[in-house]
């Protein structure tokens, strides 16, 4: 059972995001970048599949040299091989999916795993687009996974519940928090990852279908009021919600 897991290198969720002078991108100064949190669940699931069914796990990332840091983390967690699709251009979801699909097509794995979304552009689209480009089924926002022969039985999160989905492999899955508990890389793994090679490839270019015209900080809420400092403020709070906000 060979698995390809797609990983991204994104600003940490604790980072404050500011708009760059061009008005179209973010100011990366002082922003810490990390392995996309949802991709950790994807890597963990890939490793568990390998541990149970054998095979090889390849981590692939599209981006500049900085993505090597994230690929090293994937190696430290235990993936067998890391591939950087080296590209610094601005791409929309389709552009990212095209580059990843182009690589994955060559590898022809049984299972492809992605995080349910990258916490930068938040499109939650790349995974499913890869599947469509490869002509294979996919299930997004997966919270449990079981492989049985050439089939997978998975559960995905929906509003207020779950769907059970039966899928024919090869297939792509996007991981939601809760799918598993990602392992911490052991020191030995971290050391070994430092010297492992990262294969580099140049992906082909595609025209953008979606352009960011401008980005801005959301309108800031005016500072609200402190209604009180103990339980005696409750009637006033309810009055405000009822009369001023008119929501009760």
């Amino acid at each position: 059972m060979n698995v390809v897991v797609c990983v991204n290198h994104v600003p940490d969720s604790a980072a404050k995001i500011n708009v760059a002078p061009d008005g179209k991108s973010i100011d990366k100064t002082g922003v810490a970048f990390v392995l996309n949190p949802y991709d950790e669940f994807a890597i963990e699931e890939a490793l568990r599949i390998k541990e149970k069914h054998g095979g090889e796990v390849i981590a692939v990332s599209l981006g500049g040299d900085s993505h090597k840091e994230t690929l090293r983390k994937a190696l430290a967690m235990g993936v067998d091989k890391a591939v950087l699709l080296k590209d610094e251009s601005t791409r929309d979801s389709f552009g990212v999916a095209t580059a990843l699909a182009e690589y994955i097509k060559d590898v022809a794995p049984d299972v492809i795993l992605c995080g349910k979304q990258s916490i930068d552009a938040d499109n939650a689209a790349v995974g499913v687009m890869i599947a469509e480009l490869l002509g294979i089924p996919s299930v997004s926002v997966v919270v449990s996974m079981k492989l049985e022969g050439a089939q997978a039985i998975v559960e995905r999160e929906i509003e207020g519940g779950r769907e059970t989905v039966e899928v024919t492999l090869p297939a792509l899955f996007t991981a939601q928090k809760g799918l598993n508990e990602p392992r911490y890389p052991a020191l030995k793994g971290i050391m070994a990852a430092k010297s492992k090679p990262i294969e580099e490839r140049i992906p082909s270019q595609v025209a953008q279908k979606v352009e960011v015209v401008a980005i801005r900080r959301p309108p800031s809420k005016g500072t609200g009021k402190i209604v009180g400092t103990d339980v005696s403020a409750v009637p006033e709070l309810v009055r405000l919600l009822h009369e001023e906000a008119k929501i009760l």
Partner: protein
Amino acid sequence: MEQEEDIERMKILAFAEQRNGKFKKAAFEVVSVAYTLAQQTGGEVIALVIGDSIDGIASELGEYGAHRVLVVQDPKLALYSPIAYARIIVEMAARENATVVLLSATALGKDCAPRVAVKLNAGLAADCIAVDIQDGDIRATRPMYGGKVLADVKITTPVKVLTIRPNVFAVQSIDGTRPQCDVVSVSLQDADFTARTTAVTIGSGKLDVAEADIVITGGRGLKGPENFKMLEDLAEVLGGAVGASRAAVDAGWRPHGDQVGQTGKTVSPTLYIAVGVSGSIQHVAGMSSSKYIVAINKDKDAPIFQIADYGIVGDAFEIVPALTQEVKKLLGK
């Protein structure tokens, strides 16, 4: 000039999601947004409903501005199958020469839209919170970085696919005439069901935080899972849902599905009550677009107070039960 002619004919395919023969509120939101766009461009709204034995509900969409409704029904389509649904949406878009395909960014819409976009060779603007016509073209606004910034985006392909965030756009009831409803037959093949939903489990009829109009979220300040009971009591009185901060979820107090924040759910309810939640950057990213924010926290310096409309600095264990009682009084419960 050719471009202007296209705009004259802006045909919008609005995917109206139903479950068990009942439209989701998100379906009416999609049709309402499609209607607003159609009004501005002299276009037409063609709604699409997919499911099993759902022709009876199709005409409801006229009330929100659907000029026509297409119904594709088959027992095999009772539950969502990504490839089948995407193929039907694409076939209907082609049949109608639709230039815009609109879906809600629900679990289904988010899953289906990327496939639809690739098949139509269309750009996808996902999870939009504003959609307008500017210079005859669609301009959409969508949050990025968990809502820390907003992006204005332009789709450059002739056909455009957009998903709109649920609970953000108003449902507008118009005096529409009864729309023409056509049941369209589609040939389904085995290849359409290589991924198919075999069962749906809905947790105890509980309202999802992402869909609720009122959300009460508990954080580390609640000290333990047993103390979420008081939030549930308040939620019951208010008709809301209970959410949890990442700290509360990571501590194992609440399920992952309840997490609000950048690595959880993004919510924009009318009223958001944060109890014992400090207001970290990643949490605020997931809830700052709420209409009204109430913070209850014993730490007066907690960042949550900077974005709260109303705050009470104090002991949540006293304040929340008192709030429940006070709301009960007001609502005559």
